[in-house]
């Protein structure tokens, strides 16, 4: 779209600031930290900030997944229901019927691999429909979103599954070296993702595909294979997010993950990932996740009226984005 506009005068700061796009949220986050400190002395304590980080881990993983998919120029709405469906099915295959299971009674240790496998399968099916049948990705994953959430509701009768296998509960509550396991896992995966997307052929391929898939193909990148891999990976990450969430909340709620995709897109796009593909970084996306978490935490600490919560929340987000626009001087898209 912007072939000619590349000639527009925005070019001036562009060169140096191209990489600042990823840092665009940093000033906004700093301002939020100051605001939070003014609002409440609790805010800047390690405990509170750690809480914020921990609460955002699951969203973080889903955003990680969506950011990968968006960078590769695709879209996946079904991640949201994978977050609920994958752990629900895995747990239901394990726990006895008395705990609302399906009565299959697989061994406990299978919980985590099973859940991740289910996530992978969903990604696989999405990939098949998109790449083999050449259906629109938005439409396929939308249908998938509705379908698998429906299957979850039908299969569990809307019941929460709360007899979690030990491994799942462990994941949700364990602390490793003083930090919650979920923080380690998410942090590590983001670190790996940032390195791979920044410095590995396989990661750069996503940018090439998202930026111009014909050119990527002509450069010898196996476009379909990479896209499929990313979709499967996305499913796995969403399933992992679901595991962490189940573990943290102590059950798989029938509505687990519901409406999450909206926040996911918000975080990714606020963080500079473009819906048109080929642009943005995982670091930016992570900043988006953290920003949303901080705003929410500050609003809670400030005890704003619940009636005005939404308005203030939206207002802060808008102001923060204008701030990041003005500090980096970069037009967004």
């Amino acid at each position, binding site marked *: 779209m912007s072939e000619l506009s590349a000639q527009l005068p925005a070019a001036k700061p562009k060169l140096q600031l191209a990489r600042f796009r990823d840092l665009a949220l940093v000033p906004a986050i700093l301002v939020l930290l100051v605001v939070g400190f003014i609002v409440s002395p609790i805010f800047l304590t390690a405990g509170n900030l750690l809480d914020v980080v921990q609460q955002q881990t699951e969203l973080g993983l889903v955003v990680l997944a969506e950011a990968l998919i968006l960078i590769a120029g695709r879209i996946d709405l079904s991640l949201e229901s994978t977050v609920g469906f994958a752990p629900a099915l895995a747990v239901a295959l394990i726990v006895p019927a008395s705990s609302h299971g399906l009565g299959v009674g697989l061994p406990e240790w299978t919980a985590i691999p099973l859940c991740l496998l289910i996530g992978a399968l969903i990604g696989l099916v999405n990939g098949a429909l998109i790449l083999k049948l050449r259906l629109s990705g938005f439409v396929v994953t939308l249908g998938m979103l509705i379908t698998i959430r429906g299957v979850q509701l039908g299969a569990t009768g809307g019941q929460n599954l709360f007899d979690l296998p030990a491994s799942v509960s462990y994941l949700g509550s364990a602390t490793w070296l003083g930090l919650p396991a979920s923080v380690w896992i998410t942090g590590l995966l983001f670190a790996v993702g940032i390195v791979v997307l920044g410095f590995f052929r396989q990661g750069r391929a996503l940018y090439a595909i998202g930026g111009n898939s014909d050119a990527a193909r*002509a450069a010898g990148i196996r476009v379909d294979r990479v896209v499929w891999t990313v979709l499967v990976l996305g499913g796995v990450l969403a399933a992992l997010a679901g595991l962490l969430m189940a573990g943290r909340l102590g059950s798989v709620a029938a509505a687990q993950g519901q409406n999450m995709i909206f926040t996911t897109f918000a975080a990714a796009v606020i963080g500079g990932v473009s819906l048109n593909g*080929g642009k943005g970084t995982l670091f930016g996306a992570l900043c988006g996740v953290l920003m949303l978490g901080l705003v929410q935490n500050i609003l809670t600490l400030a005890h704003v009226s619940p009636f005005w919560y939404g308005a203030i929340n939206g207002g802060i987000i808008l102001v923060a984005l204008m701030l990041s626009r003005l500090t980096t001087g970069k037009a967004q898209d």
Partner: protein
Amino acid sequence: MTQPAAQARDISKRFGRTLALDGVGITVAEGSTHALVGRNGAGKSTLVSVLTGLNRPDSGQVSFGGEPAPPVEDREAWRRRVACVYQKSTIIPTLTVAENLFINRQALGGGSLISWPRLRRRAAELLDEYAVAVDPAAMAADLTVEQRQLVEIARALSFGTRFIILDEPTAQLDGPAIERLFARMSSLREGGVTFLFISHHLQEIFEICQEVTVFRDARHILTSPVRGLSKEDLVEAMTGEASGLRTEGNRSPVAENLTPVLKVSGLGLPGQFQEVDLAIRPGEVVGIAGSASSGKVALGEAIVGLRKPVHGEVQVSGRRLRPGSVPAALAGGIGFVPQDRHKEGLVAGLSVAENATLPIAHKLGRFGAISPGRRRAVAESMITDLAIKTAGPEQDVAGLSGGNQQKVVMARALADQPSVLVLIDPTAGVDVRSKENLLDAVDRAAGSGTGVLVISDELDDLRPCDRVLVMWHGAVAAEFAAGWTDGELVGAIEGIGESSE
């Protein structure tokens, strides 16, 4: 004295660290055809965007017929004063050809209500006038590069404006199409229309222009009548050095008995080309010429895996390539330049370095890791080797001038010391001196044993070839050994001459 049709004074324009125009001026006399030349990145297209109101200059003034130019917001007013074929495509791929031709004036003279049948008829007439064989109801996305360019030209000429800018209109056209364009231009000129014409084919300047302005490094160098100027003078003004043009290559002929490095047997893709056999020995440079419908581009794309042939096979160094697979072709040792740099060549948004090293990323580190240092070093050597004008390896490739983008694609093809090079229109939009650089680089590659296939209509590209095949309607119709004359080759390309059918 009449006012000039268009005048720009003291125009400066900066893009980030690049000063694209440095206080330049140009005066295009009413009724003349004025050439603008300069090396890649000299600032020609930037001036065009200023003269057409797409870009506001940092300083300086533009006037038309003595009147100051309208504000950039008033696009209608600009469009009444100047029509343009931009270097970058302004075709809207999601619309039909007919609608593209009459974009924003679909109602054909007043009113807002569109009559599609009438629009299609008018479009068909217009296309007929330029002998463009395209269905007006076709989606623009389905056109070939040449067809798109022709549509753009037909559109620009159909406005009825008195001043028309053509930014490298001929770079993607074959000979007959160029002839038709020039015929059309001269009849318009007789009607008093003024042209600003940009091209890297200097003989075209001498053929149709009366005056020429030369830019070099964002600055105005000279404006002079074309008559009395020699080609050497022009090149000297463009390059700033007095060395003459390159003489013919001095590679020694390739030994007959070498085993071919590229062997194409019975290759066929219905509707495009049939039963093509071809063998290229190491160090041999083979050209393929042919008109737009000859199937030469499709053949090249089939060899490199961009298309999947239905019949036959391609062998590189004796190994059969998996058909329709670019990775297989690259792994087999093919390097190539695709026809359309915007579509298949470059990823806008990524840096010059990254674009130049996309196919060789696996060589820039272990286990898929890419060492930024090595990438930078490789890219820097490409930039110096091919004299790519860029703010640095980290510049977004979208910010390069057209010719320099082409050089990046070329650099990439040469990057991996390929055993076979397939070059489709390799020098499109590249300036005279850079063209020599590129062809020298091809020569060097051939000298080190690479088999080269050049698919082009540019006689300059074909001249260094050991032999040139001419395709006609999907089959090889003629073969010329080095030493052909322009006339006989052009005749064969256009299907007059000794075509075998």
